[in-house]
């Protein structure tokens, strides 16, 4: 998540080029900066550029990795993926899961940030609650999955409370019935992901100059107007960049799904990532899996393009 500051950071010296210094550097030879960045670039070439070229190549071959005599087959793997109903179902479910997650992350994160920032809250209460509200963020996906499997177990505590309160009259199988599984999964992801928004928006709220609100008060604005005409526009750059990153990362979700439902029951929670993983490592169809992985990659890169453009525009503003 380090981009905003750092993206600007890489270019900072380009702007403040200092004559004395660059003169000295140019005398020391052009090779020196490359020596400093060489180890990093070697790793990126070996572990990013080369593998990406490989997976593109695999996606155009048949029997990749497994057969030594595999040959190019053009876009056949893509045609096969695109004619698979489960692929489209996974894509739809991934989008549902991602959009719901991003929307509720934002709503909950913003609500919590506004409540914590409220002048009605005692500073000590605020500090304690801030730490507690961040808790879901401190757990790794596998642990989140297993906690919620226990809580949402048919004999678990949620069903226990819901039955005691007469809200339901049978034990709901949250993760293993096709009707509820995707919603349960989305709910868990919403729980796990809102703190990033909360922390960032809280910092954003504290950065809005107090004078804006004072001026608005003089003009007779009410709380609702304050929110829509001052708070929200001021937070917009933060919201856009976090929501885009969240969208990209949520779309790639794997461990949470793998550890709760495994994509089941009967593909009801299949995501593009689990679909691809199963193609590769349970069916050993590495060529098809590569084609599917390329689809995820292209989707991510389209969003990354918007993300980088947004970062540039706010960095220059």
């Amino acid at each position, binding site marked *: 998540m380090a981009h905003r500051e750092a993206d600007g950071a890489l270019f900072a010296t380009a702007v403040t080029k200092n004559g004395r210094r660059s003169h000295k550097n140019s005398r020391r030879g052009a090779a020196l900066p490359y020596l400093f960045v060489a180890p990093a670039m070697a790793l990126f070439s070996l572990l990013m550029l080369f593998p990406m070229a490989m997976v593109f190549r695999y996606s155009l071959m048949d029997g990749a990795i497994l057969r030594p005599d595999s040959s190019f087959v053009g876009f056949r793997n893509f045609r096969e993926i695109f004619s698979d109903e489960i692929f489209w179902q996974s894509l739809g479910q991934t989008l549902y899961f991602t959009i719901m997650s991003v929307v509720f992350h934002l709503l909950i994160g913003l609500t919590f940030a506004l409540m914590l920032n409220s002048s009605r809250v005692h500073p000590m209460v605020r500090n304690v609650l801030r730490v507690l509200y961040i808790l879901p963020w401190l757990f790794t996906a596998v642990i989140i999955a297993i906690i919620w499997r226990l809580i949402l177990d048919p004999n678990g505590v949620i069903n*226990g409370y819901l039955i005691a309160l007469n809200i339901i009259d049978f034990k709901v199988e949250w993760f293993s019935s096709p009707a509820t599984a995707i919603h349960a999964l989305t709910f868990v992801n919403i729980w796990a992901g809102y703190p990033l928004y909360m922390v960032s928006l809280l910092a954003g709220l504290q950065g809005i100059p107090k004078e804006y609100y004072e001026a608005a008060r003089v003009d007779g604005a009410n709380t609702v107007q304050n929110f829509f005409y001052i708070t929200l526009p001021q937070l917009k750059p933060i919201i856009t960049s976090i929501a885009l990153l969240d969208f990209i990362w949520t779309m790639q979700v794997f461990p949470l799904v793998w550890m709760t439902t495994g994509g089941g029951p009967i593909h009801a929670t299949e995501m593009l990532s689990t679909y691809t993983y199963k193609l590769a490592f349970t069916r050993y169809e590495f060529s098809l899996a590569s084609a599917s992985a390329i689809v995820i990659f292209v989707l991510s890169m389209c969003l990354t393009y918007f993300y980088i453009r947004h970062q540039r525009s706010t960095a220059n503003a």
Partner: protein
Amino acid sequence: MRFNPLKSELLSSLAVYVGLAVGLIFATFPVVWMLFSSLKSNTEIFALPPRILPKVFTLTAYESIFSDPTKIRFFINSYFVSGMVAFLTLIVAILAAYGFSRYQFRYKKLFNVIIISTQTIPPITLLIPYFGMVVFFRIFDTYLALILTYMVFTLPYAILLMTGYINTLPKELDEAVLVDGGSSWTALWRVIVPLSVPGIVATAVYTFLLAWNEFLFALTLTKSMELRTVPIGIQLLMGQHAFEWNEMMAMSVLGSLPLLVLYLFAQRYFLAGMTAGSVKS
């Protein structure tokens, strides 16, 4: 419309506090449930009606984890791999960050794009060629396979964080070393690095946690029990003893410990790493 101002003030305060209380239950209940379930017996976890506090506190779940060398090994592996990833990432990142911060050179912009886009590449897309490469280089099921592949995801953040940090240090510091006859190399390690400790700590914390949490590569690129990390260990436990929930909750508590400790005792650095960039400074 006329409101009684005092009454409406009170009502708003009440609304905020009710909202905060609901939020508190939403945020913490699962965590509380995990913690107390790890201290209950298996039958008590499923008691009806549900009880949050255990009737009988018991440490049997923790005892059984600490008496099982396989499970202890999961933790050792996770600490070792995450520590190595943090250490190696830092060295490579400090060098690169110094280059980016102090020099102009061709392709700088290209490198920048590579670094930023690496952060959004889907892990599953890289996993397939990694599997092929790891088998080809005969490092399947080794620490090396995990450490190298984790670095591709830790390096971008580390480089960006460190570049941002080194940019805040005045260039006159390096120049002073150069004037005294030192090289850029000595300027970096003798002056810049000691002054960058806060940035280094934030970067180390963040890369450690990324590695600690990793699941997909650990699942696919290792297979022997001796090399499994905590997330995979929990997954395996889930399959083997699906009914020993107290033990799985205890594993989860222990597996979350590094994050909780780092968060509580290095909150400043932790948040710096986790949110740098998403907040406009």
